[in-house]
């Protein structure tokens, strides 16, 4: 009789180990390799697939025809996944160099047949600023920064740098009205968990008309997925313009490296003069494409550090008090996935709601991407953000790497996040330091 009265209860917050940012898909490593660990507890077959993908992301592609890794370009941004995603993470905000991790998206005003951005005739939706020897890249990108001082109420001044991008030496004149948006490579890990957050959970975070009056709306992006051939909730990309890891990976192969696959079987240069004219598409075997997607899906999230440090704990409270946590959702539950127990029904700490928010004109790119307008960005996951100093050598933050410190990144927030930024700015120096210390612990 006693037994019958016992019902399963939910755990208290304190009964979870808060270091487990990715739930069961968490790895304990705080070195430069922290982003590169497979989820624990995979069977031998899955480990093999993960290792194949791990190897694939390190491969340097070369010009076709070649005995191995054939098909680079003819126009591209870089030659391998890891060239941009340094240590499975980010890189540096330069363009067109062998070590560059940044690219520029392009579009014309208007939308395509699926409501996506309108390609620029002769250039497409992404500027390929490198070409194989003897071919001309679409253009080069010039980057300059201007100082933009920010003064705290307490008089402290921080100098932000605002980037300005220009397109140099286009192979044909660019049409008038081209819209540009620069972005850095994001880290790979944790995407399997984000892909497994139920759509209903994401929609539950949305408050499109700001019904609760907190100044924060948040709305989902819906995007055309070429694999499923339907509109789907966008989860990946700076503007949530991609629905699945597979599509994200295939798009990167094709657009960033010029490697065609069954998902995108046409060269990025199709119809343009640099097209290679070879009938070798798709260049990437499905097995490699799928192994790469699997690798990314099964990368674990790095565990938090210093969680018992009082300064970190104070910073965590301030993160909530200043409203950062309204969009950067600290705790989310993933859906059930019978295939992957490590991704299934996990209590995770991604610090994102996967929704679009207006971040104001200073951060805006003026470029529409499906339903995302020119001031909107998807809340990026913050997990692992404290490890960029390790994985990246020199860290850079925000979509285009303009912020050199976490403090700068916070100070760029405007639009829906303006109130939070103002609250951050009005904190004492000690409190601001605590909040940043907290960010370094996640």
């Amino acid at each position, binding site marked *: 009789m006693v037994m019958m009265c016992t019902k399963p209860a939910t755990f208290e917050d304190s009964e979870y180990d808060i270091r487990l940012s990715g739930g069961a898909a968490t790895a304990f490593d705080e070195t430069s390799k922290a982003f590169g*660990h497979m989820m624990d507890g995979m069977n031998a077959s899955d480990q093999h697939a993960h290792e194949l993908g791990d190897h694939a992301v390190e491969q340097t592609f070369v010009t076709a025809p070649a005995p191995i890794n054939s098909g680079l370009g003819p126009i591209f941004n870089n030659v391998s996944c890891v060239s941009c995603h340094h240590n499975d993470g980010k890189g540096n905000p330069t363009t067109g160099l062998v070590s560059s991790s940044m690219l520029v998206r392009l579009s014309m005003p208007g939308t395509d047949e699926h409501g996506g951005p309108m390609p620029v005739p002769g250039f497409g939706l992404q500027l390929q600023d490198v070409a194989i020897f003897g071919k001309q890249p679409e253009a080069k990108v010039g980057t300059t920064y201007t100082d933009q001082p920010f003064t705290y109420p307490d008089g402290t001044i921080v100098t932000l740098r605002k980037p300005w991008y220009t397109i140099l030496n286009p192979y044909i004149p660019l049409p008038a009205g081209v819209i540009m948006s620069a972005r850095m490579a994001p880290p790979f890990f944790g995407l399997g968990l984000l892909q497994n957050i139920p759509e209903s959970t994401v929609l539950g975070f949305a408050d499109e008309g700001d019904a609760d009056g907190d100044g924060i709306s948040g709305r989902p992006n819906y995007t055309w997925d070429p694999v499923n051939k339907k509109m789907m909730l966008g989860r990946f990309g700076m503007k949530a313009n991609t629905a699945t890891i597979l599509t994200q990976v295939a798009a990167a192969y094709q657009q960033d490296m010029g490697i065609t696959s069954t998902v995108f079987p046409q060269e990025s240069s199709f119809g343009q003069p640099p097209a290679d004219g070879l009938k070798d598409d798709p260049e990437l075997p499905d097995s490699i494409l799928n192994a790469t997607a699997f690798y990314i899906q099964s990368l674990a999230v790095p565990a938090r550090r210093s969680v018992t440090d009082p300064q970190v704990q104070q910073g965590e409270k301030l993160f909530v008090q200043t409203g950062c946590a309204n969009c950067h959702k600290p705790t989310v539950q993933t859906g059930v996935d019978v295939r992957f127990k490590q991704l299934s029904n996990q209590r995770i700490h991604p610090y994102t709601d996967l929704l679009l928010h207006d971040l104001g004109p200073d951060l805006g790119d003026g470029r529409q991407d499906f339903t995302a307008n020119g001031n909107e960005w998807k809340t990026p996951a913050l997990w692992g953000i404290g490890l960029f100093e390790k994985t990246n050598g020199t860290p850079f933050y925000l979509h285009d790497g303009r912020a050199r410190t976490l403090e700068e990144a916070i100070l760029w927030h405007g639009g829906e996040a303006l109130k939070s930024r103002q609250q951050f700015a009005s904190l004492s120096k000690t409190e601001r330091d605590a909040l940043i210390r907290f960010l370094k612990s996640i």
Partner: protein
Amino acid sequence: MKQLSILLAAGSLTLFACSKDDNNGGNPNEDFNTVKTTVLADFAVKTGLPGYSNLKDKATTLNNAITALNSSATDANLSAAQAAWRDMRSTWEQCEGYLFGPVEDDNYDPNMDTWPVDYVQMDSLLASSNALQLTDIENLSTLSLRGYHPIEYVLWGKDGKRTAASITARQKQYITSLSLDLKNICTALYTSWAPEGGNYASKVQTAGSGSSVFAKKQEAYIAIVDGLIGICDEVGSGKMKEPFDAQDPQIVESPFSGNSAIDFKNNITGAYNVYTCKFLGNEGTGLNKLVAMKNISLDNEIQQKFQAAITSFNSITVPYEQAILTQKVQCQNTMNAINDLKATLEEKLRPFIITNITD
């Protein structure tokens, strides 16, 4: 090194608790805390920095040899250039036993050792009228046209039967500039570790006591150990395994010179140098001593597995691109020995470090 157990990493498993205070035959008079500082210091100045210093010198030798070949295309000069390439390669592959820090953060590795060679681009570059001076090389858009392997391709030819007379003037100019580029890269890499430059050596030495890179000693140790695991993984599961599985000699790393098996052996030797702190005639206090102080049987096991992996290469008696076809058992045995070593480093040495070095 890709799978980390949450429990192991958290250091909460009783498995280690019992080995914590065991002395197991190590010298009880030595202070573990002193040794753990010495190991980092010695790694920095007796392995890390001297390795890059030697690499820089060998890059200069290679550049001189290729310059001589460029001015006088004799077969003797070709042989000298080939020997200089192999010699430099030997140091570099051993330096790959510690692939962390500037070599990784500042892309020195891909700048000199990108693979595979891009034949199509190289052929069109050489067939073009594009200038081939150093600045032209530096401006090439892809790294697969720079570094060791394009030099190897020209010095040996695609079939490995190069004669000095068959090297074209443009090929000679190309590798002259490539070797100068390599020399500049290696000089910069050395400088990044040297006191007169970035002084990364001191950042390792001062780990846990003011280092701007390693807030804790443990972080520097993990970087070192992960370097050992990483190179074993790269050789055992990548460089050797892929051409072996595919039975394809074309995808072996250094196919023109037939140097691949030597490269692989030097990689593992490089890791052993780091473990024992013995490199290029320098000798210091290595990880082996630290491990032996707490767990001599673990040190014995690691030493034995290093030796087994290194000596297993002796049974591969033909270039690796042939061995994958004709000495399959020997190749598999070597890979097994490397994977076995890697498993010990990953499953025993790394947890040992996490448990015993917490500051």
